[in-house]
């Protein structure tokens, strides 16, 4: 399944990780994608649905939306703006 803007440059597998680990992983790995590229996080943690967009807002990145990984787990995508 592709994201809203094609495949992300980097996808983080945070299945099974509790809140707030998926957002921590986003923070840790943002620097690994270039400005303009998309970073995705796959997470079962229900808080990620609210917290990935909130993280993007607070850190000045662009939240693109949610789709599903092939196994049905939610995947959240963020474009690096800065």
């Amino acid at each position, binding site marked *: 399944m592709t994201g809203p803007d094609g495949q992300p440059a980097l996808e983080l597998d945070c299945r099974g990780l509790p809140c707030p680990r998926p957002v921590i992983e986003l923070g840790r790995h943002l620097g690994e994608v270039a400005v303009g590229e998309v970073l995705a996080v796959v997470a079962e943690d229900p808080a990620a649905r609210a*917290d990935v967009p909130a993280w993007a807002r607070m850190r000045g990145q662009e939240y693109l939306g949610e789709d599903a990984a092939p196994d049905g787990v939610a995947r959240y995508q963020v474009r690096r703006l800065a």
Partner: protein
Amino acid sequence: MSTHTAGDRSAPPTLLDAAAGRPLHPAAREVLDAALARGWADPRALHGPGRDARLLLDNAREVVAECLGVRRDEVWFVPPADAVVRGFLGLAEARAARGARDLVVAPVEHAQVRHAAAWWTARRGGDVREAPVDRDGRVDPAALAALAAAPEVAAAALQLANHEIATTQPVADVHLPEGVDLFVDASASLGLLDLPSGPGWSAAAGCAKSWGGPAWVGLMLVRHGARWSNPLPGEPGPADAGGGLPDVAGALAAAAALRATLAERDAVDERRRRLVDRLRTTAAALPDVDLVGDPVDRLPHLLTFSCLYLPGDALVRELDREGFAVASGSACTASTLEPSHVLAAVGALTHGNVRVSLAPDVTEDEVERFCGVLPRVVDRLRAEVGL
């Protein structure tokens, strides 16, 4: 005021979670003891002890009515959860005969209101319609009224102020279409904020906890002439809403606490507003903190913020170790492991959440000490995360 040393488990922590529970107001304590001694009988009984209890209960209703600017026959003492469920759904039930089966609520309503709405609409085959809120959690009254204009809508609910993020709602500005009545959930705010005096709302609920009364005493207000029909098993009118023996002593204690709280309110809340502003400035100065709720039009005693990358449970534990009792809306602190629906509804960060709420007797020194400790705790936990 006691001083507190970090790690000293013998000293009670400084209560910064007054919204969740606090010691009884001294006025309530005094009345409770006396009322238990005198008002133990069933106030419906015709004998002497029954008449005594009846007198006390009527007195409690009179005091509460006077405090809130409503009529005595609009005041009912019922358990707090019942006040919400029956108060709200009673308005809906009264409109069910014309086929109305949907309810309008705000997404930031207390879980009790949301559960009640889901339960009632599911039984009727209807839907819950959610009015949108802005980033502060405030409903647009016109949008709420527009949603309520659909013929399927039986009733609407709007809180007076939010229990988690303190934002007040423009209850007085809600003008619902004919045939749809407004329920106001004031469970987190009665005694702190006034209910609008106009005819705009038809039923309301309060919990004595919010004004220093017994936490088990709730208040259901059903306006004179409002169409209200008991939605749960029991007699049709509100008189029997709580079922069983009325809690005379609890009602009297709640009434005494309300009267005392309102008498002290201006001074106490002016101070708490100032101290919350001080807390807000401290939280805002921390890096990567999301401040939630309206900074001005809010409950006087409550502040919520979320710290990026930090688990809410670790924050609560670390602050407790430092001698401060705070609450959190983060998923890891909830029995459901779901994040606060209020924080999610306003687009706020749900992890690393801290809710601070000040008791009326909070001291300047307690708040200052917290403002000194908070940055250290956040720094320490952030260092562990490495971000």
